[in-house]
């Protein structure tokens, strides 16, 4: 068979994954902390925007969190493909572990968004397309968590949520392009766009550092959560096994 593929699947075997991730994690965690220190320092020392006042500093949390909320879903969608196509147990674990993280980032972006909205638009919440589609994303994360909770056969739960994740992926482009499709209160994209960023570099740098910091935070937590999930499954298997063996001793 394809050499690269078999190499990959060897690396992706859970035991090796545990070993490898165990070695990487401390470095990842350290790097994340460092990035956050730098990012936070930068976001509190840059000059304010005349138009928006100091509230622009909210952007350095709000925008990375919003990006991460969407990226997390994309990671889950890729894992979902892994579950359905290759039936790889690590993929199952990956999207199950990512759902709570995604929900948390979405929550941050929702809350900071409304905290920004109050001074800027004069209201905490409007039902505009961007805001609502993010809210829907939040609900989808919670729905997936609930689905995973409601089933105790882990691999079946993984396959079913994979299907849902893929179907729900339509929401991501809606979030991304909602500001362009419907003209709304919300800011249109100024960083990630076809013709290059239009944002003032004064804001761009802290934003980018914070975005990278958030991304590393996500991957660190994701790795940790995946490890937890693998352990959880092992424990369940061993418990069942023990019980079965006890059951066999009793019944002839």
């Amino acid at each position, binding site marked *: 068979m394809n050499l690269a593929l078999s190499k990959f699947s060897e690396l992706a075997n859970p035991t090796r994954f545990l070993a490898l991730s165990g070695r990487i994690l401390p470095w990842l965690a350290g790097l994340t902390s460092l990035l956050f220190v730098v990012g936070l320092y930068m976001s509190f020392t840059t000059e304010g925007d005349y138009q928006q006042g100091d509230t622009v500093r909210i952007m350095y949390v709000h925008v990375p969190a919003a990006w991460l909320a969407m990226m997390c879903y994309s990671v889950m969608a890729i894992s979902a493909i892994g579950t359905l196509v290759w039936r790889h147990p690590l993929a199952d674990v990956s999207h199950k572990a990512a759902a709570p993280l995604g929900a948390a980032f979405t929550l941050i972006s929702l809350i900071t968004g409304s905290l920004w909205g109050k001074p800027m638009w004069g209201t905490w919440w409007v039902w505009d397309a961007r805001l609502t589609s993010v809210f829907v994303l939040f609900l989808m994360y919670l729905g997936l968590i609930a689905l995973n909770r409601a089933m*105790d056969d882990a691999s079946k739960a993984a396959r079913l949520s994979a299907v849902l994740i893929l179907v729900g992926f339509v929401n991501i482009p809606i979030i991304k392009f909602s500001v362009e499709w419907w003209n709304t209160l919300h800011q249109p994209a100024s960083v990630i766009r076809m013709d290059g960023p239009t944002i003032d570099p004064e804001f761009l740098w802290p934003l980018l550092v914070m975005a990278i910091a958030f991304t590393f935070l996500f991957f660190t937590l994701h790795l940790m959560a995946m490890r937890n999930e693998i352990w959880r499954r092992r424990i369940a298997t061993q418990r*069942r096994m023990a*019980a*079965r*063996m*006890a*059951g*066999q*001793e*009793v*019944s*002839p």
Partner: protein
Amino acid sequence: MRLVAENLAAKRGEDLIFVNVSFQLAAGEAMVLTGRNGSGKSTLLRVVAGLLRPERGRVEAVFRDGRESRPAREVSHYLGHRNAMKQELTVIENLAFWQAYLGDFEGGEGRSIAAAADAVGLGGITHLPFGYLSAGQQRRFAMAKLLVAHRPVWILDEPTAALDASADQMFAGLVHEHLANGGIAIAATHQPLGLKDAKTLVMKGFEYRETGEMA
């Protein structure tokens, strides 16, 4: 205690299924119902269990030589085709619920859940959700339900369907024990149950005579 059925007749839909069925069972006696498919065994059992109102006749549990009587359903366990257990709950949760909900009938005491599970030979897997069990395992735990709450009368509809040979024996043992303690058992079955000294009632089915005005 005696179980007395007099002149029972029952309808299903608009058709009479049987008429004039009478029997008496004293403490420690068992009765086996046989007959071909559709002859009315399950119908009779449901009448005895009070789940189907008889067209005529009555069925009662008589205490203290007839000085007190109660509807048979209140003194009975009924094990039908369906196991009355929730797939989503574990075996322990299921049994604990029935134990608490049914309560013991006076004059006896149910076993603990662990003891009942041991008695049906599946002590080790009570923590599994009921839906995860094989057909035979499910049936065995449905029998364990008879043990966790005390009822003097057991009404059993094809209890050993889906059971393997060792479980058949286990079941016969349980019923004998129940009878030895002064219980009563009625079972409908197509297979020999291994019950010694049981009365037999052969259901013939009713010959679809015209009886009522419309029927």
